[in-house]
């Protein structure tokens, strides 16, 4: 059923994109403080790199105003000795970059622009992660390195969203588009949601792309969740049963008020979703239409139109 599972992976070499939520508003109110959360993640990244020399990890920070690549294990300079340091060199690099990112993210902040729900720019970082995939396709042929060539033959990319802040309905369309392109390129999106209730976006993302959605019940055991569930490479997923979330929230957001709705009106031309009946579609400008009313779930919408 998972689309990603249909692709056969020859081995356990994997490329892991980690989307790290750095929304300050979430972390300042979270049960698990950021200073306790991050070490788990760093240890997890280390363990992924430990498992296979060819594994690659890329970290993208998802901020409130921006998102950015903050770490790529392939660009690690020849790993020197970590002798006498308190943590591996790659972690201190990552922390350095992360700090710079947070400062930049704050500078982008315009006072008063913060309103309502303070969600992170998940759509941006998802797109960045998918673009990285494309870069890989192109980039690999430039490097004559013969170890890297091994990885080209079957590289298995997976995305892991470490998200805490709640969904931003205004990003609905962008996130949905990212999800569909991930599905199309057979990239599973795993999500580990740290917030208090479930994230409908991430549930849908994981459901559609065949990834795993998990909301840790014990946040202080995060590393155990990460290493038990999310460290499973795509090759092994064919043999293991991973936690399956029941009750995916398929509700969509309307385009007009960005509200999450159960029922709505869909433009029969461009499939825009509205919570009220309009005379004219504000997305594509079609008159008269906005006709079909359905219980909204992307599954249905697509079925009707195809």
């Amino acid at each position, binding site marked *: 059923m998972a689309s990603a599972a249909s*692709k056969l992976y020859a081995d356990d070499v994997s490329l892991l994109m980690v989307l790290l939520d750095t929304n300050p508003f979430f972390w300042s109110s979270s049960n698990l403080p950021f200073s306790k959360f991050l070490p788990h993640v760093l240890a997890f990244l280390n363990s992924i790199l430990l498992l296979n020399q060819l594994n690659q990890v890329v970290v993208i920070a998802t901020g409130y105003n921006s998102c950015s690549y903050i770490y790529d294990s392939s660009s690690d300079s020849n790993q020197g000795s970590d002798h006498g340091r308190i943590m591996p060199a790659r972690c201190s690099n990552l922390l350095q970059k992360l700090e710079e990112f947070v400062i930049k993210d704050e500078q982008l902040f315009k006072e008063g622009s913060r309103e309502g729900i303070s969600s992170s720019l998940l759509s941006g970082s998802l797109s960045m992660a998918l673009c990285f995939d494309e870069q890989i396709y192109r980039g690999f042929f430039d490097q004559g390195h013969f170890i890297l060539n091994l990885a080209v033959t079957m590289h298995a990319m997976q995305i892991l969203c470490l998200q805490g802040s709640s969904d931003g309905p205004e990003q609905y369309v962008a996130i949905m588009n990212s999800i569909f392109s991930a599905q199309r390129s057979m990239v599973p999106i795993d999500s580990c949601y740290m917030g208090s209730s479930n994230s409908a976006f991430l549930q849908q993302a994981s459901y559609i792309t065949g990834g795993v959605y998990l909301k840790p019940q014990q946040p202080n055991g995060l590393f*155990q969740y990460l290493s038990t569930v999310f460290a499973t490479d795509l090759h092994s997923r064919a043999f293991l049963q991973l936690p399956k979330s029941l009750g995916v929230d398929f509700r969509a957001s309307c385009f007009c008020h960005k509200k999450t709705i159960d029922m709505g009106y869909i433009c029969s031309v461009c499939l825009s979703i509205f919570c009220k009946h309009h005379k004219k579609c504000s997305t594509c400008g079609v008159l008269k239409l906005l006709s079909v009313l*359905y219980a909204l779930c992307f599954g249905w919408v697509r079925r009707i139109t195809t």
Partner: protein
Amino acid sequence: MSSSSSRRVVKRVKYKDAVKNPGTPGVLTMVENRFVFKPNDPTSARMLDVEFRHIKGHKNTKEGSKQPPLLNLSSSREGISYIFEFQSYPDLHECRDFVGNALSKATETAKTASERDGVTFPDEQLSAAEMELRMKLLQEDSELQKLHMQFVISGVLTESEFWATRKKLLDGDSRTKPKQRVGFKNSMILDTKPTSDGRIFALKPAVHQAFLKLVPIKMTEKDFWTKYFRAEFLHSTKNAATIAAEAAEDEELAIFLKEDEIVAREARWKIRRVDPTLDMEADQGDDYTHLPDHGIFRDGSKDITELQNEQYRRTLSQDLNRQGAVVLQGRTVDGDLEDPENVAEALMRSRQEPDEGAVQERLDRITRMNEMDDLREPRDHPVAQLCIKDPRDYFDTQQANALKTLDDSRIGIEQKKCSMTTEEAYGSLRESISKIKSIGLKNSTVESEIALTVLNGLTQNISSTKYQLGKNPRESILDSLPNRTKEELLHHWMSIQELLRHFWSSYPITTAYLSTKVGKLKDAMSQIYRQLEEIKESDFRHQVSLLVRPMHQALDAAFQHYESDLQKRAARSAEMPNGNA
């Protein structure tokens, strides 16, 4: 065994209640309006005699599937279906076509009946071909046929309304054809008069060059063409010796008589630019010209002339190739085509043009060929088909959503505004980062007890989902229902979709026609609504109500819209009592 007349089909079959049953062997006879099954064992009670008008749909197994050839005729009476196993697929196909015809005929008679006594609707005039296409579509898809029966024949929708939403199905094979370029007529000129469309020039570059050189400086146009046709005449005599003699005497005539130097050069050039991966050397052995029937001369004779006159010989194949090349090249000359001089000059201009671009294109093509297609990775990345999996999954998730219910009510609590200011929030985040920097990852490893509880929790989750969903994780509530209820529900869902589509596309209501249509649709929908209620009262109340809920919601919304729109219109007509009728 089968009778030759299409009015009647007789086949040896096995009749079954269910696919898995062994079935009763017997003979199936189909006539115009009914089918009869007689078991081989006369004592068996399983005799059938059913009229086609009681049959509402048919399904059959696909050829090539592992299943035996089965035909399933479902009756309009609840839950009854007749399954026949045929001895071969051809038998099955014959019967299926017969059933398809019979059913559409039954439909048609019903329809004509309804049209006769019903209101005349604005209907387009259909050609026989279109009618046939619709019939075919209905025969191929029994679901569609069911819908068609249900709505068109009962008069809820008109024929044209029904098909209006399925335009895509109807114009499946109309395709736009590429525009054609104007070219030469593909007729050989072997003995023509000097046509002025430049054809001779295009065909024979040497003549073209000679024309530019000689006319009008050395000779008049008339003299030129006279000479040309004299040369053509000489060729037609096939006497190479005479040709050689004449050529020796007359310098200008020789131009026409010799092999076209320019064409030959082009040919050589073409050989040179042949894709280097083609092995021309290898073809050398394939020289067939010495064999009989190769190298036919242009008028069919095959006499052998002396070798020294080789250059005055022209073979049919050469001429044909040249002709073909010119025709394919098309007419590149614009402007006045009446005057041969103009034509000649224009042609010269157009010849010179394709230099840079053409060379570049050729190089591109060569490099593309050189890539050795079969040794490359496929150019495009592998992609999955973008489609949603089984839409029935939706029902599952709806069920789970209904079960967890209260979880969502917490959203409100979570959305509590973070009381911190922006600076404070960012400040604390930065502080956390520097804190990690100073103490390292010491507290990253989880304590053994917590790790164990987490692992046990996850393991429990996995085993519980395994048991909850049974062995097959894809098993859904829909599958847990008995077949009859399931089919009924799916059919209702299809009908609701169809009706809603028509319902919403009729708004806003501008004509009286639309208003009656909406009324009819609404009645049909409320009928289905009641039927759904009835199903809900059946044994599987809990499961069914979960499935029915979204359908009811959709219908409710439609009714609500209908009522409010009705009120609005009533109010408007009250406002202007003298509204233009």
